[in-house]
């Protein structure tokens, strides 16, 4: 038995004075594994002098006890041929039960490689180890690089793969079990060409305007928020199919200014010309020149929501702006809603727990600030009024309660703690003729709160 019979793919690699080094492949269960072996020249040094290295793919499949066994045989072997025969036998036995076909050689993987070949390797941007994620690139006429990620289902190649693109619309390709990667790619090229005008229009805007949003526009983003001046910007959503048509417009800023611009826009709308570029059209109908991206006079527009400190939150931008010029913060509708709900819950819970009120009777009462425009000096918590209410109930009285509108919370504002009875008037319940009219006419409380729109009593 010669070495050639067992390892026909073994080549001498290096010869020195003391040893010969071989390199080659061994066929084990139909697969070829790379290995190196070093054999001493002198026969007397053969035992214990051989050194073996095999590739990782084989090494990691062998159990520890198998490795020990191989080492023993290697040390005891008296010829290379015998050892190789032993080695193949041991490895075949240990792999027989647990054998997994290596990925690279599976039929499906070969098919995939073939399809990539057909497409051209120059189009390939990235490929993961399992060949199930393929990233392709297409450069359009303007030199923009578009990426297409294809996730293949290797269990069943007839299942429609998932495609990820940076297109403004979902990428829909025709799929039958026989569709190949090249077909998908062709459709992708067609789709990319479809949006050329759209990207050109947005590029003009990105180059010439101070775009606040998105910070790093992708090819997929159809929206832009363009600064008009400090604290005023225009949010547009562009139609990607017909980019020169009038986009969805929304002004973000203080109400007097935004409504002014909205009026200008409405007046000039007839001047919109679909033959003109989007950028020029916007300037035309708004009657302004957008400040350039390098314009430093534009103060950073308070773009973040004053509550969550973010701008884009679940596709929502802060578009409710505080009317008070000193504040002029923008808020997300959802953030404002949330805090309103919390206040409402707070009110309800507190009322239930502490006052044991019939909620149907409780309505938030709006109250404008006192005419002097000063904050009342004292704040009393509802719980502090419990004793008053308990007393009122004991005496079978009716209580008029004012809730302040500023926080819709469980606070009651009174100007002076010692005058509390003026604000919480106790009226015996069974007094004849007692009704709202009576109260509104008689109680001195109402003089203090003459501009109350509503009141709650119990």
């Amino acid at each position: 038995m010669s070495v050639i019979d067992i390892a026909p793919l073994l080549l001498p690699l290096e010869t020195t004075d003391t040893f010969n080094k071989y390199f080659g492949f061994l066929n084990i269960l139909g697969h070829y594994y790379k290995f190196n072996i070093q054999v001493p020249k002198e026969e007397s040094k053969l035992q214990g002098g051989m050194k073996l290295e095999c590739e990782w793919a084989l090494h990691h499949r062998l159990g520890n006890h198998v490795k020990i066994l191989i080492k023993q045989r290697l040390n005891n072997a008296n010829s290379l041929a015998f050892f190789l025969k032993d080695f193949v036998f041991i490895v075949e036995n240990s792999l027989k039960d647990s054998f997994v076909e290596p990925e690279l050689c599976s039929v499906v993987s070969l098919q995939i490689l073939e399809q990539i070949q057909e497409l051209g390797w120059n189009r390939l941007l990235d490929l993961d180890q399992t060949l199930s994620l393929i990233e392709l690139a297409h450069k359009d006429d303007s030199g923009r690089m578009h990426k297409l990620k294809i996730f293949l289902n290797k269990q069943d190649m007839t299942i429609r793969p998932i495609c990820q693109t940076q297109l403004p619309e979902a990428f829909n390709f025709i799929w039958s079990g026989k569709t190949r990667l090249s077909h998908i790619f062709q459709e992708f090229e067609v789709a990319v060409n479809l949006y050329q005008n759209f990207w050109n229009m947005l590029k003009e805007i990105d180059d010439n305007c101070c775009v606040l949003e998105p910070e790093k526009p992708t090819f997929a983003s159809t929206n832009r928020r363009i600064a008009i001046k400090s604290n005023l910007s225009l949010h547009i959503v562009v139609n990607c199919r017909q980019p020169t048509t009038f986009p969805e417009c929304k002004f973000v800023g203080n109400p007097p200014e935004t409504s002014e611009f909205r009026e200008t826009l409405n007046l000039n709308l007839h001047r919109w010309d679909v033959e003109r570029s989007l950028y020029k059209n916007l300037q035309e109908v708004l009657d302004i020149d957008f400040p350039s991206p390098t314009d430093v006079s534009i103060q950073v527009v308070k773009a973040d929501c004053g509550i969550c400190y973010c701008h884009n939150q679940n596709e929502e931008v802060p578009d409710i702006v505080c009317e008070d010029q000193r504040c002029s913060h923008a808020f997300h509708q959802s953030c404002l809603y949330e805090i309103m709900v919390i206040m409402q819950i707070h009110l309800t819970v507190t009322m239930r727990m502490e006052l044991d009120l019939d909620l149907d009777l409780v309505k938030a009462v709006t109250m404008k600030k006192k005419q002097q425009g000063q904050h009342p000096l004292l704040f009393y918590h509802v719980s502090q009024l419990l004793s008053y209410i308990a007393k009122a109930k004991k005496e079978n009285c009716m209580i008029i309660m004012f809730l302040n509108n500023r926080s819709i919370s469980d606070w009651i504002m009174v100007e002076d703690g010692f005058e509390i009875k003026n604000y919480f008037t106790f009226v015996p319940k069974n007094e004849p003729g007692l009704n709202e009219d009576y109260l509104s006419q008689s109680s001195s409380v109402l003089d203090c709160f003459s501009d109350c729109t509503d009141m709650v009593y119990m």
Partner: protein
Amino acid sequence: MTSMEKRLQKELQAMTKDPPAGVSVNTDLLSSNLSEWVVDIEGAPGTLYESERFQLGFKFTSRYPFDSPQVMFLGPNIPVHPHIYSNGHICLSILTEDWSPALSVQSVCLSIVSMLSSCKEKKLPPDNALYVRTCSKDPKKTRWWYHDNSV
């Protein structure tokens, strides 16, 4: 990142980049998810607390900024002030009932510094002894009865 972490991250950035006078975040004592902060504050010049240094502890829940933070003075040096109890609890309406999500760590710190600055006489709250003995560990659980807003 949760919205609470996002917002605190931004607040932290702003406060470390451009700290208001007499207020600085102790970044060594920040917890990893930003839910606990320690802020060093210094009494303003020309006031009773001039050049005195104090530490404020902030604790945020995941509901921040909808939920107010828990704020109290930490450590050995607690200012003697009619609205600050000797266990560090602070009687300040914006920390509980008057909290609004438009407020921030910075505005709370500034309110506390200005509360110290407007103090005319260093004295403990009148009910300090009783309160410190009976209160909950969390000042937010206290039902404050705000006496006055002159200080």
